[in-house]
């Protein structure tokens, strides 16, 4: 059972919108209604005339605040493409902040925002990332960077290939879309000269440092507070213009400022993700062994470079080789700016995309050589005895060294779990009766446990209550439970008696937050180290109090007891904490307090891996794809809490299904967004979800941490596009039919029509 659940089940959660302060003002953003245009004038007179409207700000009011900087994957030359708090001179996407209204009441702020008149001269919009680059501003093209990754003799491999297999593959624009929209509430305490930002998520410490830097304040005078977070998925918790604006306004107006995003805003202003086109080709020998892969990637970044800089195209290019032995490789990822909402990461960033591309390519190789897709995969998998396997590629500042894995073993387990041969026969029989049914398999390698460090502090109070303070963050994934479990095991207390504190910059100096499936690995190991140190300290003191050699003592249920006897003298952790009070005569020169700190450092990520198998049925009349059955097999090294891992996998799988069949941010030819409500941007309901079978494996513990942990957050989403595409091909009876995600009914009907023409 999760420690998190009780307040959430009883309506006592504290999400961003639940936080209010006396005398607060409400901020409403006025957004561009043109995809591209010259911003000639802003008239706020009518808005300011409404009683209760305190101010309307535009770019001129915050000209002294620098643009929002990069958090990850910074490369040279990107700085001019960063987003400022407000559009200045030009607007570049529908939804771009142009002005902000501050008013006594949120309804009033919204009324006033509608009265702010924007004079914008429309300019032609760039909406295709794969066409020739255009102009971002004079002297700067809409291609700020090309991310290049390569190793081996690619050209030679293509010259000597038995066959060259090519494909052009596209992934649609979609995003995390958490059910809680964004929110930010800033408050300035002039008495203490401390600025507080509530509603923080994901990376509070980094954001604290950035906000302090942007506002010219010392980091120790800015604090971020994470409450409950209604879903993260990569997009929430990055710094956006609105977060900085509430802080600036709170300082200048000396009143708390509250901003809660509405759903339309969320769908046009919060990070989008995923949209890429890949022109990929493989050189293969006559047995289907891959000799080389070459990929030209066009990444549709939207209007600006946000905090992730080139993270997504970088990950796509670096992780594309996946589980296969590919002797030579070259990828050029063109980062292209378009007049759409800017992009960031979304669960399995760059991997949902590149797994779709790689696995489609492997299917194409199988089709070309008339081999079974599963057999081609087997022939190319890196063997377990080749681990650790240096990829000769890097990403997120780390070299990719596949740390451990038995890829073929997991493939066997997954195929056995669905009784693959029997399944194929059943499907063949159904096909013979005219049903359009099919199955598909996809393999992938994930990454997790991004360092380089994590810090955890554990303290026991004089009543024996344990508090773990960490610099990580919760996005609803259950970290309080997992961290408490790890602490409980290492320390010898009941996990239900452990309080886990996170997302507070005023409680711990350092923290890297929650992203890249890092928390269980990094924070988990730092917790184990801290808990072990605390236990050793408790036993050392208890040894003196009980006059018993330390090696005979253990901590069980919060009591230090003799491990060699069922009964006997014991002392509680609370009593030891009392003995260590600063004024205690029992302390004997030891540092005060029963507490310990743990640090874990890691320069490498680790690499969980998985297999997805999908069974789909196509409705000929509607073009709808129904997923009848789904299996995710995932090796996480060691499963701390299988219930939570399964929850992560099934939830990720639902998001993968959304991106594969339903979800897409569409624009008209002028760049007007068409997916601005949940009636246009369709996410899976329970009706679209198949039963998902989850096979959690622990065959390849990570050698990079003592518990062998790997992260579990992203494997459920990673290969859905790939597996479902293969299953739809199979159902259509046309190899390589699916080249584009999402597979909407319209697209599928086109495929059905061309299948009939064959």
């Amino acid at each position, binding site marked *: 059972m999760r420690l998190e659940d009780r307040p959430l089940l009883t309506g006592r959660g504290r999400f961003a919108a639940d936080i209010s302060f006396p005398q607060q003002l409400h901020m409403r953003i006025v957004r561009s209604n043109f995809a591209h245009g010259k911003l000639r004038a802003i008239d706020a007179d009518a808005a300011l005339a409404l009683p209760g409207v305190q101010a309307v700000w535009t770019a001129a009011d915050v000209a002294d605040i620098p643009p929002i900087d990069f958090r990850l994957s910074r490369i040279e030359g990107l700085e001019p493409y960063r987003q400022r708090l407000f559009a200045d001179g030009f607007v570049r996407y529908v939804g771009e902040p142009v002005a902000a209204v501050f008013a006594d009441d949120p*309804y009033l702020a919204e009324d006033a925002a509608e009265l702010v008149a924007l004079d914008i001269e429309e300019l032609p919009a760039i909406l295709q990332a794969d066409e020739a680059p255009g102009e971002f501003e004079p002297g700067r093209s809409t291609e700020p960077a090309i991310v290049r990754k390569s190793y081996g003799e690619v050209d030679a491999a293509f010259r000597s290939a038995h066959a060259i297999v090519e494909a052009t593959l596209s992934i649609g624009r979609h995003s995390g879309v958490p059910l809680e929209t964004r929110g930010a509430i800033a408050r300035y305490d002039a008495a203490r000269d401390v600025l507080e930002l509530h509603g923080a998520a994901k990376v509070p410490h980094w954001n604290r440092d950035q906000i302090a830097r942007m506002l010219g304040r010392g980091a120790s005078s800015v604090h971020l507070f994470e409450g409950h977070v209604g879903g993260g998925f990569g997009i929430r918790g990055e710094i956006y213009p609105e977060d900085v604006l509430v802080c600036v306004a709170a300082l200048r107006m000396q009143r708390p400022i509250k901003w809660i995003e509405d759903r339309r805003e969320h769908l046009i202003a919060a990070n989008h993700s995923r949209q890429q086109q890949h022109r990929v080709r493989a050189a293969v020998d006559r047995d289907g062994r891959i000799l080389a892969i070459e990929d030209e990637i066009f990444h549709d970044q939207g209007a600006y470079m946000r905090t992730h800089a080139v993270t997504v195209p970088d990950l796509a290019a670096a992780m594309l080789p996946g589980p296969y032995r590919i002797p030579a490789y070259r990828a050029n990822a063109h980062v292209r700016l378009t007049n759409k909402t800017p992009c960031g990461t979304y669960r399995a960033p760059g991997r949902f995309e590149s797994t779709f591309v790689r696995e489609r390519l492997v299917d194409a190789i199988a089709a070309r050589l008339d081999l079974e897709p599963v057999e081609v995969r087997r022939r190319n998998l890196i063997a377990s005895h080749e681990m650790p396997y240096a990829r000769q590629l890097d990403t997120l500042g780390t070299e990719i060294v596949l740390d451990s894995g038995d890829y073929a073993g997991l493939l066997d387990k997954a195929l056995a779990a669905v009784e693959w041969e029997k399944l194929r026969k059943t499907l063949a029989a159904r096909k013979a009766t005219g049903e359009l049914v099919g199955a598909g398999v996809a393999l992938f390698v994930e990454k997790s446990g991004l360092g380089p460090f994590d810090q955890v502090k554990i303290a026991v109070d004089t009543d024996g209550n344990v508090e773990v303070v960490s610099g990580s963050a919760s996005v609803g994934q259950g970290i309080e439970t997992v961290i408490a479990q790890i602490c409980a095991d290492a320390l010898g207390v009941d996990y239900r008696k452990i309080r886990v504190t996170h997302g507070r910059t005023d409680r711990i100096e350092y923290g890297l937050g929650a992203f890249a499936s890092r928390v269980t690995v990094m924070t988990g190991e730092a917790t184990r180290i801290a808990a072990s140190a605390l236990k050793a300290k408790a036993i050392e003191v208890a040894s003196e109090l009980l006059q018993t050699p330390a090696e005979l003592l253990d901590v069980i249920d919060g009591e230090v007891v003799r491990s060699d006897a069922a009964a006997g003298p014991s002392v509680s952790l609370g009593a030891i904490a009392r003995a260590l009070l600063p004024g205690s005569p029992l302390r004997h020169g030891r540092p005060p307090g029963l507490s310990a700190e743990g640090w874990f450092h890691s320069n490498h990520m680790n690499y969980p891996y998985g297999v997805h198998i999908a069974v789909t049925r196509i409705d000929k009349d509607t073009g709808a794809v129904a997923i009848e059955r789904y299996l995710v097999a995932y090796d996480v090294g060691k499963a701390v809490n299988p219930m939570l891992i399964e929850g992560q996998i099934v939830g990720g799988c639902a998001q993968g299904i959304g991106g594969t069949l339903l979800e897409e941010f569409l624009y008209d030819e002028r760049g007007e967004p068409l997916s601005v409500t949940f009636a246009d941007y369709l996410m899976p309901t329970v009706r679209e979800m198949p039963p998902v079978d989850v096979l959690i494996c622990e065959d390849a513990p990570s050698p990079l941490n003592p518990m062998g942990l790997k992260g579990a957050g992203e494997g459920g989403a990673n290969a859905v596009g790939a597996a479902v595409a293969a299953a739809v091909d199979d159902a259509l009876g046309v190899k390589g039919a699916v080249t584009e995600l999402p597979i909407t009914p319209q697209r599928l009907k086109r495929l059905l029509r061309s299948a009939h023409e064959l």
Partner: protein
Amino acid sequence: MSERDEITLTINGKRHAIRVEPRRTLVDAIREDCGQTGTHIGCEHGVCGACTVLVDGAPVRSCLMFAVQAHGKEIRTVEGLAKGDELNALQRAFMENHGLQCGFCTPGFLMLITGVLEREPDITDEELIDVLSSNLCRCTGYQNIVKAARAVAGEMRQRRTA
């Protein structure tokens, strides 16, 4: 827009006398005027169901109803489910089946299921899926929400036949 009506909202048996603009949504009144923030706003146009509450026993999207329309009616929200510290059967089932992750959609699902099971105690598993498909969850993939709802529906059936 300064015209305000005096209304009374009865939430979980407690009366709240408030003054609201005619355009104020019920969910804003519940959250901001009555301080019951357990009911959440997810989309503001009736699709996601995060704001589901019971009005005179029927599940209602409180973002699509004006506060003035709920004057004098019995409103039930997630805060009314537990008895003191004791979770009710549905809340326990969500906990036991890991039916929530971030917990944002949870109050809406709890109220939707509560309302439906009270009105249709004999609902079949398949009909229950239809009902659950009216709310969105972005974390769980629904599997465990379905398990929790079916567990409680099953318990209710058993209790009545026993």
